[in-house]
């Protein structure tokens, strides 16, 4: 296997991994705080993409890219994603706070169905593959005869910045300490005088906002949106979060990158049809060697 062949695949994997990492961090944070596999997370991403489509479509004139528009629509979308996540948390998950986790998961499935089929039943959207109003330019640079665009680079940079910001919030601020405390022991944290409900909502907001950012970036890059776009990527993000060690921001980020690389390299080595199998195989191997994921901590269970 020559370097010439594997290197572009690794770079491609890093790029795909950047998206996955953004969504995986959101998944992981929600999981860390509620032990909930939020199946609706991928659909937050999808809904945010449609919101950005509508807003950007309303303000875009012509084909020249107005980066100012893109930026403020991006911020609006992040807020929209966060708000959607918080609404779902308040309306669906909080009333179920004493229920078994499996019931919460099924409720999440229900929310996912509602979001997907809600978009499906909007007349002008439906099942169409809608072209994104803004197409970024494709000029770029070449490394080892492979051409990369500035847009790609920009997307990776923004993703890294966002993840680092979240990591900093979680690990180096009082707020983050509160989040980690709630994740570790909700009852005790309440006793410490912290409003755990608000912290949980905040975590959902951050997760949703990250999904919103990923949505805008993916839509810009891939150029089209569809009501089922969240399903597959949500699943992959969840896998990435587990691979990296669920509950850990750095873990989710690394997991996302790793999964992206595994899929790309797997495609290159075995063909696209076996890529997912290759990725899952690697996942099982990793969990065998490190049962709590790459960066996961051994969380003891109370007896």
């Amino acid at each position, binding site marked *: 296997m020559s370097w010439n062949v594997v290197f572009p695949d690794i770079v491609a994997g890093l790029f795909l991994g950047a998206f996955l990492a953004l969504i995986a961090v959101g998944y992981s944070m929600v999981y860390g705080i509620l032990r909930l596999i939020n199946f609706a997370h991928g659909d937050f991403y999808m809904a945010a993409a449609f919101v950005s489509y509508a807003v950007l479509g309303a303000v875009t004139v012509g084909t020249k890219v107005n980066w100012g528009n893109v930026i403020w629509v991006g911020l609006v979308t992040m807020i929209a994603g966060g708000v959607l996540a918080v609404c779902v948390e308040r309306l669906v998950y909080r009333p179920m706070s004493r229920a078994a986790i499996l019931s919460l998961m099924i409720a999440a499935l229900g929310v996912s169905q509602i979001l997907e089929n809600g978009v499906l039943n909007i007349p002008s959207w439906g*099942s169409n593959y809608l072209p994104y109003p803004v197409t970024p330019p494709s000029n770029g640079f070449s490394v080892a005869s492979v051409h*990369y665009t500035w847009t790609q680079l920009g997307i990776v940079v923004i993703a890294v910045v966002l993840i680092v910001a979240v990591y900093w919030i979680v690990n180096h601020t009082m707020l983050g300490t509160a989040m980690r405390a709630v994740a570790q022991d909700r009852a005790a944290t309440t006793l410490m005088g912290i409003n755990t409900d608000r912290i949980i909502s905040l975590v959902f907001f951050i997760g949703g906002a990250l999904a919103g950012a990923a949505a805008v970036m993916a839509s810009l890059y891939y150029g089209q949106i569809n009501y089922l776009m969240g399903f*597959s990527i949500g699943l992959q993000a969840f896998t990435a979060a587990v691979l990296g060690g669920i509950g850990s921001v750095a873990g989710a980020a690394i997991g996302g990158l790793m999964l992206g690389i595994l899929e790309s390299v797997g495609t290159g080595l075995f*063909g*696209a*049809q076996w890529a997912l199998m290759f990725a899952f195989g690697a996942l099982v191997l990793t969990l065998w060697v490190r049962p709590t994921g790459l960066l996961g901590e051994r969380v003891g269970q109370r007896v």
Partner: protein
Amino acid sequence: MKIRSALQRSAIAGTAVLATSGSVFAFTGVASASKPHAASPYVVGVSEPETGAEAQAGTEIYDGERLAANKINAAGGVLGHKIVLKEEDDACDPQTSVNAANKLVSLGVQAQVGGYCSSAAQPAEPIYSRAKIPNIQAAANSATLTQAGYHNVFLVDPNGVPESKAAASFFTKVLKVKKLLIVDDQSTYAVSIARLTAAALKGTSTEALPIQAVPDTTQDFTAIVNTARSDGATGIYWTGYFAQGAEFVRQLRSAGLNIPFTGADGSVDPTFIKDAGADATGTYATIAVLTSFLTGSAAKAFDSGYTKAFHSQPGPYSAYGYDAMYALAHAAKNAGSLAGPKVIAALHKVKFSGLTGEVSFAANGTRVGAHFVIVEVKHGTYVLAPHQPPA
């Protein structure tokens, strides 16, 4: 003591099951088929995916049929009876499709025209056969559908053989591709085209590289692009759907790979041009569909009528739905009756010029007469490619 309560619970469970099925029955409202007289409608069932990943194709088929039905009704209907469409969701799933079939039959439909997924269509075949009504598949075209021996099955979408022949000829004689990378999306039709084309290229000057299959949810094609580059591909044949095709060609071009890109008929759609933007220019496709992407007044009328009625442009399967509905209408007119068995017999003999070419069926129901051409994207629309492969 345990047994007593266990029995009690089984009692409630049985009642619950009964209640659930009873409520379903109540909602079904079984209607008996009435003998058609002058004013009664010609009820045609449409089983297609309304929900799920194939919903887009389902909508295209249904809208194509609706357009045809509207036109037929405007001209007086079928033997004086207006066509009424009854749509049911088959979700591209065998179980849902069976339920849809049973529901349609219990509602007394006199024909079924629709269907996109072969795997869903198959278990429903005996149901329509027992009801002795025509089962016209608009887009599902797997060979397994005609192998089960049901005489009421008609496939409007030709199987992969004519298309793959045209494609192979195009690659060897027109584009003269040295190494062709064929990529499919793991759906039955795409896979069959891919394999048939690869087989047709054996022993020719075009080498078919190992076929790559991409799950139909994939948006990121960078790895495939890398494979194309490292394998030295000088041409791409994408046999999947237009949405992913647009992604594929975009990422191909943005990685600097400017080799000719050809799609199969599933990738022919205005959305392909919109989504791929400038990268769509110069791409080719093999299609049998002669819609307004090309010249021809019938085709133009189809496109403008479709857009006016449904506020979206026809997709690759709209024309098959249109032709399927017309096949039924022509057959019923020729038979002089709406009765299932008579229409079925007439369908075996029907022959007319449709949007997708000449429409007629072989003895086992496979489509005959579809003619595949190569189209090219120029100036934002599809035009007939200047060099067509020899027949």
